[in-house]
């Protein structure tokens, strides 16, 4: 996972980790607090946290007693995630443009063929 974008997407690929990020978006939380809503063991939660930490999405406070975790938003901005709806908007439309152009080309070829047949008669 040398590419930061790869690490970001890999970290976001898991729904539990996304739920943890959503929780942290409300403010810092301890590991115990993060584990609460899930029926998961603390080691499992810690493992998810480690992935988020490695992706730079979560930072553990070094100087506080319970070492609460907080959300780090820079990788989300770097991953251009905020652009995702726009990207999706144009991506879907270009797919349909492709279909429409194929139909237009087929119609053009058909028209040319009809014209040619008309000329030959």
């Amino acid at each position, binding site marked *: 996972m040398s590419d930061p974008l790869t690490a970001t997407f890999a970290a976001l690929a898991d729904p539990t980790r*996304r739920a943890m990020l959503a929780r942290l978006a409300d403010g810092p939380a301890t590991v115990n607090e993060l584990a609460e809503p899930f029926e998961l063991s603390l080691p499992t939660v810690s493992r998810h946290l480690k992935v988020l930490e490695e992706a730079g999405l979560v930072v553990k406070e070094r100087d506080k007693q319970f070492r609460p975790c907080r959300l780090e938003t820079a990788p989300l901005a770097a991953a*251009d995630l905020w652009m995702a709806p726009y990207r999706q908007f144009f991506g879907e439309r270009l797919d349909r443009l492709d279909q429409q152009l194929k139909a237009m080309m087929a119609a053009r070829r058909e028209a040319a063929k009809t014209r040619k047949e008309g000329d030959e008669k």
Partner: protein
Amino acid sequence: MTVQFGKHQEFSMQRVFEAPPDMVFDAWTRPEYLDWFFNPDNRTDAPVTVDLRVGGQWRQEMVISPTDRYFTGGLYREIVPNQKLVFAWGAVGGWPELDPDLPDENPRVTLDFKPRGEQTVLALLVQFPDHMTKEKVQWWMDCGMQAGWDMTVDRLVARYDGRGGIRRAG
């Protein structure tokens, strides 16, 4: 006011179409060929309007559901027939909201149509003015984590895995 278009606040896409540039350009600029831009399966009776000149606007109604609809389109900034089209993306009273006097406040879309044999290579570039970036990052943090987030991220991850990497703009 000078609006900045910074680096890393843009994305690009490239598509190859099995049609000549004039046809692809027409598909972007002639109302009768803009069907593909609608939301699929949801049609509107509102006509597509195109005023193809610099400063002119293209408007098209997008229907999400019978009660949820909005106008989108663009204000043309640069037109080179069959080669290049630049527009400020948006519509007056629509999404993205467009002020015709301040088109640079909106995302800017640049389309390049290049012939390649019988095909057209279309490069699409969407650039966001700097003020939008901060707002949008905040938007993601405020509400993007909820509705739409899972679906969008799942799609992104699928695309990323499938193609070995999203092409980053900048």
